[in-house]
């Protein structure tokens, strides 16, 4: 028999990052508008004050639409897209940059949005699967995925397609083997790889930037 602590984050005794921010926010509030803030704290509303102080402004263009947002520094681009902008086409598969389901373009480059803090996209252009094409006017890669049946359950598909477009634009789609190498960050558990490679090779064969 032995005792063991639950292995969470390395614990500094006492104040956590959050608690510290919370306290300093409240102190700042005291300095600025004492009566209102004191009242708020007394009423247990200090959480809301803290929240207001922790939000940071973010200007980012998402799928061609300029967004002026207010986000916590710890929010990932993935969760911003999904939970705040209702762009749920981008999927969460691991939250660790290991599966590629969350792949989007930031200024034309493919990135794992789960490893990208939203605030780092300040001033950038973000493109998600919703911005690539529409149900009525599909992007050539979307057409090719349908034609070659490059998916089954469809969950990894938005990430595969975003990655595939970038793969061609990067110049990494010169042979099926090169595509396999440069698409290996996008896992498909249903196992549609063979069809995905065919789809990418077909789009590539038509030439040009896509």
């Amino acid at each position, binding site marked *: *028999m*032995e*005792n*063991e*602590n*639950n292995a*969470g984050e390395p*614990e500094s005794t006492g104040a*956590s990052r*959050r608690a510290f921010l*919370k306290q300093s926010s409240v102190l700042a509030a005291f300095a600025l508008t004492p009566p209102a803030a004191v009242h708020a704290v007394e009423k247990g509303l200090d959480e809301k004050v*803290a*929240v207001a102080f922790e939000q940071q402004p973010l200007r980012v263009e998402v799928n061609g639409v300029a967004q002026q947002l207010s986000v*916590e520094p*710890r929010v990932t681009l993935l969760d911003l897209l*999904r*939970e705040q902008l*209702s*762009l*749920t*086409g981008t*999927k969460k*598969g*691991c*939250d*660790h940059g*290991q*599966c590629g*389901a969350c792949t989007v373009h930031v200024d034309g480059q493919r990135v794992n949005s789960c490893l990208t803090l939203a605030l780092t996209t300040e001033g950038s252009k973000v493109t998600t*699967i*919703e911005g*690539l*094409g529409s*149900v009525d006017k*599909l992007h050539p890669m*979307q057409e090719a*995925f*349908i034609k070659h*049946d490059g*998916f*089954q*359950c*469809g*969950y990894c*598909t*938005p990430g595969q397609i975003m990655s595939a477009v970038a793969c061609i634009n990067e110049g990494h789609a010169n042979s*099926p083997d090169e*595509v*396999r190498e440069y698409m*290996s*960050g*996008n*896992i498909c*558990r*249903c*196992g*549609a*790889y*063979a*069809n995905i490679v065919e789809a990418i090779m077909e789009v590539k064969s038509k030439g040009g930037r896509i």
Partner: protein
Amino acid sequence: MKNEKNPPLDRVDGRMKVTGGAKYFADFAIPNMTYCVIVGSTIARGTITSVDTKKAQGAPGVLGVFTHQNMPPIPGWDGPASKQADGPPPKPDTEEKYRILSSPKILFDGQPIAMVVADTFERATYAASLVKATYSKQTTRTDLEKHKKDEITPRGGDYARGDAKAFESAPVQLESEYTIPIEVHNPMELHGIIAHWTGADQLMVYAKTQGVNSTQQAMAQAFKLDPKNIHVHTEFMGGGFGMGLRTWPQETATVAIAKKVGRPVKLVMHRSQMFTMVGHRPYTAQSIQMGADKNGKLVSIHHAATAETAKYEDFTEATVNMTKFMYDCPNVSTRYRLVRLDRSVPIWMRGPGEATGAFALESAMDEMAHKLNMDPIEFRLKNYSETDPEHNRPYSSKHLKEAYERGAEAIGWKDRKNEPGKSKEDNWLAGYGMSTGVFNAFRWEASARVVLNADGSLVVQSAVTDIGPGTGTALTMIAHNVLDIPFERIKVEYGDTSLPKAPSQGGSAIVSAVGSAVFDTCTKIKNDLFELATKAGAPLAGSKAADLSIENGNVFISNDSSKKVAITELLKANNLPSIAQTADSKGSAELEKYSMYSFSVHFVKVKVNALTGAVRVTKAVSVADSGRIVSPKTAASQMIGGVTGGIGMALTEEAIIDHRYGRFVNNNFADYHVAVHADVPAIETIFIDKPDPIINPMGAKGMGEIALIGFSAAVANAVFNATGKRIRQLPITPDKVMQEA
């Protein structure tokens, strides 16, 4: 119905899936949503001595921290189990009972010790990190190899036919042991649920389930509600592979918590939790004794398997069943045992027990063929079972010989050298391997509703969930085949409990079950149309329904197509805005006279680097004998998916436990290696595509499981052919290839 091969049809939900429009459970937005994060135990066996939730409760945005000390009760869990195995079914003969957050007892690594709810995902995640627990730890037992002596005999018992001692006098004998590690389904979509109480006794659930009706039943039982009050929606599911075949305790707990919190709750689990809370393919140790005469005729097979299960629930699967009937052998016996360990409970994973068993049996067949100096296909043909030797009845259909032939042709089997280690390509050793797969073809009960609208469009409805095989596409094809309505005018609605009941998507059984229901319902509509066309005063009055056909939007007299009437006219003339029909469909008693199986043959070519031990599959051919192929395009995808899963199973997949602690060391995608693009070559799929005359009106048998079953043995056999090294423990990693030199 036209009994012709079906054309390839683009996936009907393709546009939704490539545009991000397809909504999976976690994509639904509900006002006032809250977010749940699970804290798991860091020990595999023991007792929680304290759990400190004070900091978590005080963290911003937190609405509740639930532990065994304050978890709201789940009233129906300890009642009698429902027919569907949902929630933790009471198993009085197990040593332990697992009820989530109901006791300080820890039965497996990662067992939930707290569920934290907050108003944003980030806040819930942070608060969850503040929950601290201390434990009184006990010695863990997680290594099956060390505890085999504690085996128990599950229900079902052993099987034997013929002479148990036949092996002893067999001229050629083989005794081998095979091991399958823990494999984890790891669908791309994380598991979870959205629970939303829309009224005091009204529940809306967005689930990650392979069967909405099954989830509905489980929640009805857990919360003692009329199933009618529970609405479950899963139109799209990001892969299941078996892990969604039951309702897991944390789902039910989330529903209970949502009631307590009074707001909708969304749970999206962490990838590491996919290893401990939603089942896995159990570690299984197997042994095979095989006897043959010198001409290559099997004398005896004994197949034994011992698999892990949890302390709190006995999970069994059909690991040794294939051996009972696959080959024509007079003396066969099987033995299946479980060992209860400090592990979470396994669940069926694609090609469930059969994929485990086929690795052993089909490796052993290859080993025996080698001992006999026979070609492995020739050896299998020599022992081909024309009828089912287990049940002494005919197969409903079996075209396995043709499958062997066509696969061999496609892979270039003639280039294979029977003596191993004799082929080199580009400085790599090259080899060919093959194996057989088999899985029950089922005909379950299902229902469907079909509505023919006055504009000639058709709506097909079933509660079935499409987890990826292309169910919607297959049902579209079946409706089209009966009524000849253009594909683009057929809409399939599925994945919702408001629609007619269907079984869970599993067991490769959905095209057979739901497809038959759609076939029967469309046939009813067709008969309605024939009646309208032939009644007094109608355009084809006086004709008999039996003499009519339907094509291209018209009902016409089969031998005189000039006498016709448009379907739209028929509805209009009768003032009908639509015709709707519902039908329940199930197989007749006739089916019991037959053994119904789908068969597959897998061929692979591998190259093996003699220096590094790396194995690459360079070509794969899989042949399916699964009756009429309803939707060739999506079926081919299912086959290549099985091959891809098989490559992972054969070469890379293994969840590793540090048995000192009973905990996983590789519970993420970076360390648990599923096959990626670079691992998978071009794959050729071949369909025999001959309808089964017995199973259902389409003549279709299932194919999801056979796509995987046997594949890993084909790789192992190819590695042997390339190197002369027989690897009997999956996965075939470079260290094993080098070690056995």
